[in-house]
């Protein structure tokens, strides 16, 4: 039987920063004479893309609905990408994974027990990292098409106006910082650029 691969979680607000962090992590985790670990990204199932395309003029969703959709997409990613890689002995980077959903949900006021129960079908990661959340240019800001958080904020802004997305974003970043302070995840640091 082949060795079980490792599941590495990479959490963050998404977009360019998360994609760059994933590349750095691939280089860090790459073993000699082996291909770089594959990166399993958000919305592999296309659920969010289809909703975004069809959502014009339709009221937005609540955080709870967004997280149910995230869980559905994650179930797809596990079935088609993550579990097959792990069973083949391949290390796989899930970017984002559980803590992005939990951080978003906690920042939006949902209970951590509900979030953990909802996502209990997903295996725990063998390691957890976060992307650096420093200042970035407008052109490199995450968009609703490449970030669960931004997709969620777009939906929340399209509801009855009771959601403060700036507060949720700050709460989300504080959640990841809290994990890092407890030693449960580490920021992916920049490596020397490769030629």
């Amino acid at each position, binding site marked *: 039987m082949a060795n079980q691969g490792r599941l590495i979680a990479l959490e963050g607000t998404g977009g360019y920063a998360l994609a760059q962090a994933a590349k750095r992590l691939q280089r860090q985790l790459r073993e000699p004479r082996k291909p770089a670990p594959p990166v399993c990204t958000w919305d592999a199932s296309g659920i969010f893309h289809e909703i975004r395309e069809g959502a014009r003029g339709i009221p937005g*969703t609540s955080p*709870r*609905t967004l997280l*149910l*959709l995230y869980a559905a997409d994650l179930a797809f990613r596990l079935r088609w990408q993550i579990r097959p890689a792990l069973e083949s002995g391949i290390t796989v980077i899930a970017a984002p994974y559980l803590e992005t959903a939990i951080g978003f949900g906690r920042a939006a006021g949902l209970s951590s027990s509900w979030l953990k*129960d*909802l996502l*209990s079908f997903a295996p725990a990661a063998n390691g957890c990292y976060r992307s650096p959340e420093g200042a970035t240019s407008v052109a490199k800001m995450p968009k609703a098409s490449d970030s669960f958080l931004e997709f969620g904020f777009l939906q929340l802004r399209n509801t009855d106006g009771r959601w403060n997305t700036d507060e949720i974003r700050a709460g989300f970043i504080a959640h990841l910082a809290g994990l890092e302070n407890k030693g449960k995840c580490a920021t992916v640091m920049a490596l020397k650029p490769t030629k």
Partner: protein
Amino acid sequence: MNIIPGFERRRRISKQIAALIEKRQEKRGLLIAFEGPDGSGKTTQRKLFKQWLHSEGHDVTTTKWNSSALIKPVVKVRKQVRALSAEEFCLLHAADYRYRMDSEILPALWEGTTVVADRFLFTALARDAARGLELDWLLKVYSPLFWPDLVFYFSVSPETSSQRIAADRDPSYYEAGQDITQIDNPLQSYRTFITRVIAEYEALAGIFKFVTIDAEQSDMISTG
């Protein structure tokens, strides 16, 4: 002396909130669910019930299972290409349910409108449990739970449900539970799957005290 700072203020606010909730509850509309297997006649009876409520002067709105403008198209495409696992099937229907709860059902209830649901939470519990998912996890996925004021359960045997479905059409892939049974013939698969679904419904009917209606009689279903 105020021993606990802010205690009186918090108690006053709590009372105000409780009074507001009570006042809201007084004018809240009723949520009435129609549940049962396919071919049990619940849709026909739901339409007649809605007409009767209208004739009695009630404001009534209907909500149907898997019908939200936002999520239904996503589910429909995946059903067509048979791309859903049991978990994905469950989670997408739960998202659709939650979206309708937030945007249709709860606002209507708080306005005092009676909401008649053509399938509700118990459809999910029965079908998803029949697909092998744990009831405990399903109840958590669908939390916070909002129980209907009344549930009409249209009880038929697996044979009757299968015969009525077969008279009209072949059941679709997921309706027939072919994702679980692995039986190629849709009607054979339906018979196997609906037997499991009905067993789950019967258990729920006892626990949640449904009003059970014997729907074996042919006058329960539409003749048109």
